[in-house]
């Protein structure tokens, strides 16, 4: 019986992008259902009652939630192709550590760069550049964080490439000047079809984030 894979998806979500990349890396067919987070589908509410968020991967009607957990699930079920985690336990722990670091830092810090102004934005910009420089050190001379092929950390981080234009424009800085290695790494990832097919256009994302920024700033005003 062929596996039935449904992804409750959102074109602009970096977390959903991760799952799209992983499924494509493994050569898996899946159905993508675009969610409207302002009007969540009964299926989403049924499959992720705890967080009510995307992405959700539904495999033969059983849901898996939280993108990093979904990536590990995909890697464990479809073990024989394009492994995302190495086999050595210490290297696996390192990969999980950096995937967790990306989860904790990049979304929230990056968001402050494109959504705020003034001192908060300036502090976030410095913080984000420091994060990216740290990740550059972790990458070292390897083509990918995963070594010769895409790994958990690559898949976790590359969706944020779709934010690069928005970050540079709002933050008024150049990523290629601050973090040239990271930009080379990103371009290398984009040469892979699994990645280029899964990431939206940076300008489309910029427009979308600017809409969110308006909403965010409206909420902050008293």
């Amino acid at each position: 019986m062929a596996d039935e894979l449904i992804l409750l998806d959102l074109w602009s979500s970096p977390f959903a992008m991760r799952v799209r990349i992983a499924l494509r890396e493994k050569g898996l067919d899946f159905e993508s259902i675009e969610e409207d987070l302002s009007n969540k589908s009964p299926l989403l509410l049924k499959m992720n009652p705890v967080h009510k968020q995307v992405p959700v991967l539904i495999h033969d009607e059983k849901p898996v939630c939280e993108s990093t957990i979904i990536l590990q699930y995909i890697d464990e079920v479809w073990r024989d192709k394009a492994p995302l985690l190495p086999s050595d336990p210490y290297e696996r722990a390192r990969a999980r550590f950096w995937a967790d670091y990306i989860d904790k830092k990049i979304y929230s810090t990056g968001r402050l760069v494109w959504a705020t102004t003034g001192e908060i934005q300036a502090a976030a910009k410095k913080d984000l550049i420091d994060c990216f420089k740290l990740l550059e050190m972790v990458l070292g001379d390897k083509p990918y964080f995963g070594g010769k092929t895409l790994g958990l950390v690559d898949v976790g981080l590359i969706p944020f490439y779709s934010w690069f234009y928005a970050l540079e424009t709002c933050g008024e800085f150049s990523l290629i000047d601050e973090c040239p290695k990271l930009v080379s790494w990103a371009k290398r990832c984009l040469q892979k079809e699994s990645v280029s097919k899964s990431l939206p256009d940076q300008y489309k994302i910029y427009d979308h984030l600017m809409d969110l920024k308006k909403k965010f700033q409206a909420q902050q005003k008293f």
Partner: protein
Amino acid sequence: MADELVLLDVHVSMFGMRVRIALAEKGIKYEYREENLANKSTLLLETNPVHKKIPVLIHNGKPICESLIIVQYIDEVWKDKSPLLPSDPYQRAQARFWADFVDKKVFDAGRKIWRTKGEELEAAKKELIDALELLEGELGDKPYFNGDTFGFLDLAFITFYSWFHTYETCGNFSIEKHCPKLIKWAKRCMERESVSKSLADPITVYEFVLMLKKKYGH
């Protein structure tokens, strides 16, 4: 060559306790080092420069950080004894999901209970009770979250039991009243030596929190 294991920890930390339980479950000998978070050791700053937090497990000189990552590492290296994660990928994903839920919801709400007053405190109490009720639902009628045997999610959550007295006292409520099944489960886990020897005494935890409240004026 015998394995050299050092655990940088803080006695009352529910995250550190997880690693202690995992090491005990596997029957692994290690050197325990108590950290003073107001005066972090050079070793801690060197082995966890990114977060500067405990626990850190140092295995033959190589550090592993973040409690759930450490537990999975221990489970993978010492795989022949007392497996903690289930072998089925779907059940593993479920265990990881709920452990992540504990980290996000139980920890945050619990922390707000001893750090806030008034409306904020009441909101935090509701948050915590909601989270605990969801976990109780997930437990269902099983003896352990893992099923018939103690496993990863039991280990990840039981350490918070040592903090229940603190939450209840600071928040003036009874967790047992809202989640009696959880308390039964906790007492069942406490019958395991690996758990009872690894958890801090609830009174010790409360006294530690009182000290912090005084120090930081909460």
